[in-house]
């Protein structure tokens, strides 16, 4: 019997909104019992059945075979001697030897062998058959292998398995960035990595705060787990005492650990006197006690601490470049740099793109800030002095890496081209003064060798797909560790060509740095003169001063390069002239210097074109404000020619 209920609706009424209404229950179908079927009813035996609402578990047992270990000693004896002769006894051995020599056979053999041997020895002396012909030519070609690097180890922060065992949390553990790496000062086999999540207000509830110390022999399980009260943003080994580490926390506190005492910090600084923002830089100082360190954070303060007494900082400095010591004006520090050879000076890289050089021993707080270097558009993520030339330092920020000299404050002396992705960290090589490393936010590690190639990195490696957050070179200069955003630390070994000092490298690098500094100095002085001229002109004078600087031989060279661009420049001038109107009718002094040199010098070429990095525009501020009309475009070209 089929039970069917038919429901009809007019097609025009399709799609109409329903309006429901209550109605009493109505019996649609009623199926009465059929007694004729009762006869074929079979009674089922009652059966006991149980139900339990619980997950199925099973028990397993595993027992490995026991390995029996036993300590045993081995006694080495000089072998070969017949049993009755004790090798220690000189007399016995001599007697034995004499006996052997008396043997007739022995004499014959020796005579025969002797003649053969003599023949070969004479052969050797006569001519060296394995002599290296053309031996001198080999030394000319040193770089035959292309620079390369290979991954030796990948330490990924443990998968959920380990964390579930430890903390019994949800298996989806959030991945944290490896924000800072520090190599163990002596052995270089241990690496301390600080993990934290630097995303703004992304603190997931069950993110663990731990940071790990890894032993390279065992990349699966960390050697020591450091448990701070808040995630660590920076972590450093004490170079004097390799058991002590200091870490800067996400909440601004400083903590220090002793690896002999376990994973909990020995002491933590009090919250009221610590930083108010994550501590981005923490470095140990050179001191007799070896217990002093200092830290910097984006709240604009640099604090000095003695780790024996972390309850309050020993000294503090507010990074206010107006030199008033106001916290409101302070710039947030993102990176800190300290060179042990210059213990009173240090440098801070800020979020605003300015690098501040400070002197700790200045008498008054405003004088502590000695100079500022601005040039980056974004925060300066890394700051490093060249280990061979302390006056030269490298800054990494926004999309470029720049090399500065302490003497030229207006701009960097060398810079890389603008990359497609953010540069996150950088450091110099400890063995070669011309090599430095940078990491990018597309997961690439670049190795730059500016004696070899200045436009591009000499080696570019894609390490992983996520952005790389930190970089640290081991002291021997051959192994570099990079930490990524998802917590994976990759160790790479770079080819020996990039980590052995080349011939003449130091002299070439010195020459290059000097050249660049000189160029910048000349540009600076030229700028100043331009500005002075501007001021003189704006007082109503219409004299056109044309100065000819003394030209160094280098300027002649750079000038010949620039002449090529004069045509382009003249065209631009004409166009701007057509657009803007003349207000003052004076000759503006646009100090537009264009350094465009694209040719990289051949390796070992030495002197020649200056930096081959990309275009840099020095637009004088006052000049840009005025109209760009030049009555004598030619004169401007000449001015440019004179400028170095």
């Amino acid at each position, binding site marked *: 019997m089929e039970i069917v209920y038919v429901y009809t609706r007019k097609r025009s009424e399709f799609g109409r909104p329903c309006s429901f209404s209550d109605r009493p229950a109505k019996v649609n179908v009623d199926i009465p019992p059929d007694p004729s079927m009762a006869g074929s009813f079979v009674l089922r035996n009652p059966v006991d059945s149980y139900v339990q609402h619980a997950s199925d578990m099973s028990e397993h047992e595993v027992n490995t075979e026991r390995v029996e270990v036993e300590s045993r000693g081995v006694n080495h004896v*000089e*072998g*070969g*001697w*017949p049993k009755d002769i004790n090798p220690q006894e000189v007399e016995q051995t001599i007697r*034995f*030897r004499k006996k*052997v*020599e008396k*043997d007739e*056979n*022995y*004499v014959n*053999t*020796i*005579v*025969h*062998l*002797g*003649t*053969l*041997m*003599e023949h*070969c*020895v*004479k052969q*050797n*002396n006569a001519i*060296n058959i*394995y*002599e*290296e012909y053309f031996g001198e030519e080999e030394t000319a070609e040193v770089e035959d292998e292309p620079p390369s690097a290979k991954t030796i180890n990948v330490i990924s922060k443990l998968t959920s398995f380990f964390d579930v065992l430890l903390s019994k949390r949800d298996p989806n553990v959030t991945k944290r960035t490896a924000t800072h790496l520090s190599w163990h000062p002596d052995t270089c086999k241990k690496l301390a990595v600080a993990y934290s999540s630097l995303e703004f207000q992304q603190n997931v509830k069950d993110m663990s705060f731990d940071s790990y110390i890894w032993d390279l022999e065992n990349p699966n399980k960390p050697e020591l787990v450091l448990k701070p009260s808040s995630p660590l943003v920076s972590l450093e080994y004490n170079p004097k005492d390799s058991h002590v580490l200091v870490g800067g926390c996400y909440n601004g506190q400083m903590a220090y650990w002793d690896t002999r005492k376990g994973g909990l910090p020995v002491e933590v600084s009090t919250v009221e006197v610590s930083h108010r923002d994550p501590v981005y830089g923490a470095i140990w100082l050179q001191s007799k006690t070896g217990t002093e360190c200092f830290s910097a954070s984006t709240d604009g303060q640099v604090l000095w601490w003695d780790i024996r007494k972390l309850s309050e900082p020993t000294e503090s400095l507010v990074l206010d470049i107006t030199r008033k010591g106001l916290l409101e004006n302070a710039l947030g520090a993102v990176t800190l740099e300290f060179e042990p050879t210059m213990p009173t000076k240090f440098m801070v890289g800020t979020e605003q793109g300015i690098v501040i050089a400070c002197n700790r021993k200045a008498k008054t707080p405003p004088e502590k800030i000695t100079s500022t270097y601005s040039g980056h558009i974004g925060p300066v993520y890394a700051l490093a002095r060249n280990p061979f030339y302390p006056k030269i330092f490298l800054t990494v920020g926004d999309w470029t890496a720049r090399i500065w000299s302490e003497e030229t404050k207006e701009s960097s002396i060398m810079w890389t081209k603008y990359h497609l992705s953010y540069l996150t960290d950088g450091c110099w090589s400890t063995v070669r003064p011309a090599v430095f490393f940078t990491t990018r936010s597309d997961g690439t590690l670049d190795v730059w060798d500016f004696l070899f190639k200045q436009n591009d990195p000499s080696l570019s490696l894609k390490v992983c797909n996520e952005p790389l957050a930190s970089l640290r070179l081991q002291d021997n200069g051959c192994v570099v560790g990079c930490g990524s955003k998802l917590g994976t630390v990759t160790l790479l070994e770079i080819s020996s060509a990039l980590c052995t000092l080349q011939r003449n490298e130091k002299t070439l690098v010195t020459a290059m740095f000097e050249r660049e500094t000189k160029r910048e100095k000349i540009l600076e002085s030229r700028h100043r003169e331009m500005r002075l001229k501007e001021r003189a002109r704006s007082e109503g004078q219409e004299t056109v001063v044309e100065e000819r600087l003394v030209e160094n031989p280098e300027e002649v060279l750079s000038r010949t390069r620039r002449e090529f661009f004069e045509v382009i420049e003249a065209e631009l001038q004409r166009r701007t002239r057509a657009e803007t109107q003349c207000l003052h009718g004076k000759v503006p002094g646009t100090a537009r210097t264009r350094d465009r040199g694209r040719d990289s010098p051949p390796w070992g070429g030495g002197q020649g074109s200056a930096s081959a990095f990309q275009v840099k525009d020095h637009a004088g501020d006052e000049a840009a404000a005025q109209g760009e009309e030049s009555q004598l475009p030619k004169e401007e070209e000449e001015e440019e020619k004179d400028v170095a």
Partner: protein
Amino acid sequence: AEVEEILKRIQAHRGVIATMVINAEGIPIRTTLDNSTTVQYAGLLHQLTMKARSTVRDIDPQNDLTFLRIRSKKHEIMIIPGNISIKITIELYVL
């Protein structure tokens, strides 16, 4: 006596640093080096010579090892295997 003469002659050649005579069991019979070095050389080179000889013999049973030269960056070691004794000379590299 003849033995002495021969050994002395070899030792007198230009560039020869040391000479050693080792018997079949690896015991140095005669040497111009000090004892510990000799023992070290004897032990190591004896085994190497045996291995080399057996290799040559394995490839061609009629063949036999006549001379073994080990040239390294600093020295050259020349070994002549005999029936009951082997003689080793260590020579300085002539560049």
